[in-house]
């Protein structure tokens, strides 16, 4: 708690420093806007109304949540398949690795061609971006089981299903959560990338619009909100993790994020 307060303190110090720097050095607004100016674009009523923040935040948030949901489910499912069968593993892994190293933005025209625009394709792009860490983490978790823990149920004649349900999956939970946390940030980034490729609303849309008019305060406001969404999402997952993994020894005080 104290740590959190100190962090907030540092953050305001940083804002102050930024404000003073912009004012003293006379930095032009279209290079770096001052924090006050940036915040005014979010909170000053007439400006805020012009930018329709709730609409765009909601659109982006929907993409983030939906993509996270899909990533979480499909990523874990794929990880489960990989760990379940060696054949599937050799088949799936190289393809995932191959796609992971592609810069998704390079496929922008193709994405539009294949999926169109809107909630669904943006979500898909985010899924594609965020997919990998979950698969890797979960399958690591499923494999990092003490062999003796498996023996413990094997000598009782446990089925493969029982082994997964009773041992492997709960055992993988900490890994699954750390995969979730990594993916959370990537879902945010992925959604924005999706909005860049094609969109008619969302913070990424607004950001591009602002960029067209060299409206840097709005651009910074968008960036601020985007990373705020990311941090909040990450924080929410950390809380959830503490809830779900109640049986883990409580070692971390404030978390890393």
């Amino acid at each position, binding site marked *: 708690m104290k740590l959190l307060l100190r962090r907030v303190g540092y953050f305001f110090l940083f804002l102050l420093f930024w404000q003073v720097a912009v004012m003293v050095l006379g930095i*032009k607004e279209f290079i770096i806007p001052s924090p006050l100016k940036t915040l005014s674009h979010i909170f000053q009523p007439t400006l805020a109304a012009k930018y329709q923040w709730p609409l765009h935040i909601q659109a982006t948030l929907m993409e983030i949540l939906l993509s996270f949901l899909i990533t979480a489910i499909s990523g874990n499912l794929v990880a489960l398949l990989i760990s379940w069968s060696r054949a599937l593993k050799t088949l799936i892994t190289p393809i995932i690795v191959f796609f992971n190293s592609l810069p998704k933005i390079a496929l922008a*025209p193709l994405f*539009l*061609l294949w999926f*169109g625009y809107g909630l669904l394709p943006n979500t898909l792009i985010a899924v594609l971006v965020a997919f990998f860490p979950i698969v890797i983490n979960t399958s690591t978790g499923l494999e990092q089981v003490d062999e003796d823990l498996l023996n413990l149920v094997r000598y009782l004649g446990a089925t493969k299903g029982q082994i997964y349900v009773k041992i492997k999956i709960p055992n993988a939970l900490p890994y699954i959560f750390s995969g979730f946390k990594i993916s959370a940030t990537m879902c945010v980034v992925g959604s924005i990338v999706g909005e860049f*490729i*094609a*969109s008619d609303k969302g913070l990424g849309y607004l950001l*591009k619009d602002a960029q*067209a008019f060299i409206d840097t305060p709005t651009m910074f406001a968008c960036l601020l909100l985007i990373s705020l969404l990311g941090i909040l999402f990450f924080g929410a997952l950390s809380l959830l993790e503490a809830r779900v993994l109640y049986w883990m020894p409580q070692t971390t005080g404030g978390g890393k994020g």
Partner: protein
Amino acid sequence: KEASPKAPTKEAPKALEKVDFQLNWKITGDHAPYYVALEKGWYKEEGLDVNVILGQGSGYTVQVIDTKKADIGISDAPVPITNRAKGAKVKIIGIIFDKHPNCMYFWKSSGITKPQDIVGKTVAVPATDGHKVMWPAFAKQIGVDPSSVKFVNIEPAAKVSALASKNADVVFELYTGKPFMEKAIPPDQLGYFVWSDYGFNAYAHSYITHDDTIKTRPEMLRKFLKATYRAWDYTLKNPAEAIDILGKYHPINKEDYLANLKVVMDFFKTDRYKNNGIGYIDPARMRETVELVARYMNVQMNFPPEDVYDASFLPSPPFKYNW
């Protein structure tokens, strides 16, 4: 700084003056002349060492020129005009296209028969694209409410896809992009309206520079424009060779780019250029452009229209293009 691989800087003698030249975008067919001038040594002849820098759009060019990160740049005319009103110290010193190349594409099957049919349609265009910036002006000119269409922001690279996949009813793209559209959409099904055919008479691609540069380095500007328009003249007369030269510097598909350049050449086939030479700035039309910007794009013009340009660096005698 980036230097092109075969730029003549290599065997540069003593006193070549360095010029950073900011393009408006990645390489397109209409950038061939700069490489022609480089290849033939015409910039060097003028004592200039020109460094061509790829672009990020007109807005970016204005930012770069205003912050003096480059000396001369290419920008869509309304952009420097708008920004001058906001305090940017940039001026137009020469024109490239004499006709405005903005254009809208659609499937003929969509039932659009006149520009006004765009009302209620979905339009895909990159947010940073000049089309989007100037749409309100054109909309009012053709008598429709600018907010009566639904915009989708897309990556510039996705323009063709957006139309080909019918994810948008209309795509705004320069007339010069027509050969690329035709790759994905059969030419007989591709419909288009060039804005200038419907009264959109604003100036488009122009050379811009900083007010300070005009004061301190007028000779350089003069030399640059001379070599550049000379190269334009040559390019217009030998398009295939120009694209060949461009292909030496950049990984382009020459067939596509030659088609692109040939469309571009249409913008030079005007009586103004025939009579006054390529690059000529028509004061009346410039005034019209400024007014258009002021009226339709809600910009407070706090200076006379003559302030946005300076025609004194254009080559004399001019390169008159006789097509």
